[in-house]
């Protein structure tokens, strides 16, 4: 598929292109809620619009991470990824996108006004980078800077039929990202083609003195001839998803050797992932105290603990649940049983996946169920919800790069598959999906900003 970025840059545009784009986007956004902020006073000149997830700091733009706790927070600096996009010159900031509060969610509903699926607004957009995916499916020429901790790029990308690329942990600087879980957070990209994702990746990746964990400098392109399907994971997929996925494997079988293998440890990845994520989240959220960032509690005559406790009532339900669980997991009496053990299991997963990924890609559906309606997602218990991350957690806990691409449309809703490779071999994923796009045309219901 041709690069939308190149196509856009090669076209003449009317002088009011960007103002009309913002107007149309604003109208459409009232139904889909993809954006928290739409920039209307853009000075863009023949630049591709890009958005940022609302947990990535943009100087002078209210950045709330989807939380009432950060309402009113206006960063006085740009995140490194934003700085690099602006400096490159081909991109212009268009707005900030909706998300689950602090990234806590699989379906985008853990926020005040959830984003809605771009193909049918009764359905879930996916989370936590819900707005990034919906924005990409609404706008013809646009790229989204998103972020994933345990599948927050893959899941919404799959549900909205866009390419969702999560680079190797440490390949892209996280300076200026509002943290969820530091050892899991990755900044990545959503786009309408793999070539566009590659173009943005080349702009934002690379060492940054402001982020010591940004340690992956060299990215390789070791192509693989085999596709591994993990038996224990595929068993968890709904029969409808499974039969569509098997049709995909039939198509890919003409180019790749498909092998079903057993990797038992991956069916045990969800629990250690959530243990690590909640432990780290509870420490990261300790800094929100009602007077330093965003929300101002204002009752300064209160004693410190009372002030702090009252102010923190502003966290949403899922955030409170994760803070309490994270605090429990870090308690001295159970830390070795939960937290340290989870870190040891992570090493097992890295070792076992690493061996398999040397020989080929791992491929799976992205989500085990068809796109759910928002009303149905609201009925899920937290454990039912977490269990749906079964395909996106294994690469996330191990820091492996992964990419979701649309491969079928059922009842006019897109379905995505996810491909994983070894750490720092990100270009091989982008090449894989570029090749897929030569024989498969992605479809969209909206094409705002068409030329």
């Amino acid at each position: 598929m041709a690069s939308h970025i190149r196509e856009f840059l090669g076209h003449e545009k009317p002088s009011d292109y960007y103002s009309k784009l913002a107007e149309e986007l604003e109208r459409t956004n009232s139904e889909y809620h993809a954006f928290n902020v739409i920039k209307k006073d853009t000075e863009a000149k023949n630049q591709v619009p890009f958005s940022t997830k609302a947990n990535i700091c943009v100087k002078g733009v209210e950045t709330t991470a989807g939380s009432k706790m950060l309402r009113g927070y206006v960063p006085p600096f740009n995140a490194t990824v934003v700085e690099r996009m602006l400096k490159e010159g081909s991109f212009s900031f268009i707005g900030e996108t909706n998300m689950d509060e602090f990234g806590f969610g699989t379906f985008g509903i853990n926020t005040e006004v959830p984003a809605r699926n771009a193909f049918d607004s009764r359905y879930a957009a996916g989370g936590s980078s819900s707005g990034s995916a919906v924005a990409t499916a609404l706008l013809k020429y646009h790229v989204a800077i998103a972020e994933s901790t345990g599948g927050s790029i893959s899941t919404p990308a799959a549900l909205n039929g866009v390419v969702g690329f999560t680079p190797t942990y440490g390949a892209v600087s996280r300076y200026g990202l509002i943290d969820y879980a530091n050892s899991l957070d990755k900044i990545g990209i959503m786009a309408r083609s793999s070539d566009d994702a590659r173009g943005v990746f080349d702009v934002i990746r690379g060492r940054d003195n402001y982020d010591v964990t940004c340690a992956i400098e060299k990215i390789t392109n070791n192509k693989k001839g085999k596709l591994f399907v993990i038996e224990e994971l595929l068993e968890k997929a709904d029969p409808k998803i499974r039969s569509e996925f098997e049709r995909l494997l039939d198509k890919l079988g003409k180019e790749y050797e498909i092998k079903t293998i057993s990797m038992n440890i991956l069916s045990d990845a969800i629990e250690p992932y959530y243990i690590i994520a909640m432990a780290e989240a509870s420490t990261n959220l300790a800094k929100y105290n009602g007077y330093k960032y965003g929300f101002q509690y204002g009752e300064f005559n209160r004693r410190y603990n009372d002030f702090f406790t009252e102010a923190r009532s502003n966290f949403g339900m899922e955030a409170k649940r994760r803070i309490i669980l994270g605090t429990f997991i870090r308690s001295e009496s159970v830390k070795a049983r939960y937290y340290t053990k989870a870190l040891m299991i992570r090493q097992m997963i890295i070792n076992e996946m690493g061996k398999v990924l040397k020989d080929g890609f791992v491929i799976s559906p992205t989500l085990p169920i068809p796109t759910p309606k928002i009303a149905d997602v609201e009925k899920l218990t937290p454990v039912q919800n977490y269990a749906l991350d079964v395909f996106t957690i294994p690469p996330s806990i191990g820091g492996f790069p992964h990419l979701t691409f649309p491969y079928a449309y059922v009842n006019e809703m897109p379905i995505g598959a996810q491909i994983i490779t070894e750490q720092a071999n990100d270009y091989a994923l982008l090449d894989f999906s570029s090749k897929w796009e030569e024989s498969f045309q992605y479809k969209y219901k909206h094409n705002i900003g068409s030329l």
Partner: protein
Amino acid sequence: MEDREFDRLLKIARLKLNDTERKRIKSDIEEIIGYFDKIDVISTHERPAYQPIHVPTRLRKDEIAHFDDVDGLKRQSKLHNGYILGPKL
């Protein structure tokens, strides 16, 4: 989870819940901890992976850098005579 243990966690986390939240979150947390307990059956002697990749210690030079948006920082908070207001200790 005993009420006493739950209250201890709320105190450490500086969170206050209303009755509806307390009932729902406490029951969810009990279910989630039961779910986490599944890791007990996994046998492992690996070293804990605090990061998924090797992160080398990279030190940068200790140089003075100029920051020119002090007002931008102050705009985040309520001020009194130019100082950021905070609660009583």
